[in-house]
């Protein structure tokens, strides 16, 4: 009877570990896909002319929506891990996320400018958006690293 219970407990533990591993792999994979999507947007933006404004807006919308979703996930992860983090890690993560939100806001300002721009102002607005988007992309990668670093430390301490 005891042996059965131990076996059952081991099976439950193993299946939980497997499920958690699958979840982590799934998140890693979607972040990688988003990184790829984000990089492609940065590269293809240069090719959009004023006559392709609608296409450019579609591509930007898709990527920014996915990025917003990821930022919300990072915020959730920070909340979930909050109790296990040191004060220094909390401060670093909060600052990193605050910078990310600031860059996101800046991109939105330039995106609004891009949407409202006339054909003659297109290149200038596109350049401004592109620079702001590159900065957002850099900050996003940094925030991913900052938060992953904290999670790795937590995992090692267990």
């Amino acid at each position, binding site marked *: 009877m005891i042996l059965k219970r131990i076996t059952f407990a081991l099976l439950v533990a193993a299946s939980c570990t497997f499920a958690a591993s699958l979840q982590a792999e799934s998140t890693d994979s979607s972040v990688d896909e988003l990184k790829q999507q984000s990089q492609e947007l940065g590269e293809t933006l240069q090719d959009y002319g004023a006559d392709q404004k609608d296409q450019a807006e579609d591509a930007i919308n898709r990527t920014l929506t996915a990025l917003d979703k990821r930022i919300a996930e990072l915020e959730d992860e920070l909340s979930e891990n909050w109790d296990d983090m040191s004060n220094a890690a909390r401060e670093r993560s909060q600052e990193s996320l605050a910078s990310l939100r*600031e860059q996101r806001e800046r991109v939105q300002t330039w995106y609004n400018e891009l949407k409202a721009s006339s054909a003659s102002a297109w290149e200038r607005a596109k350049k401004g958006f592109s620079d702001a988007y590159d900065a957002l992309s850099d900050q996003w990668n940094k925030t991913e690293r900052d938060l992953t670093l904290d999670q790795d430390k937590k995992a090692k301490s267990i």
Partner: protein
Amino acid sequence: MPFSPDHIAELNLLSQFESSSGQAGIKVHRQDAAPETVQAAERLFSKGLITRDDGGYLTPMGSEAVELAQKLQSILTT
């Protein structure tokens, strides 16, 4: 119409941005910076040219202002 000292301080602060793209932001440290620079940052923010009242990044309008300021400076120095 002559440039006022306030305008000069604002132009000088705008010139601190590396380029009109505003790729890099700036921070005006209230404790260390000259009072006219601190106030210039606050005015530029309230006019919608920069993203924070202590620096930040250029907005689209700020970016245009820097471009124009650079052109003016180039004309005056040639």
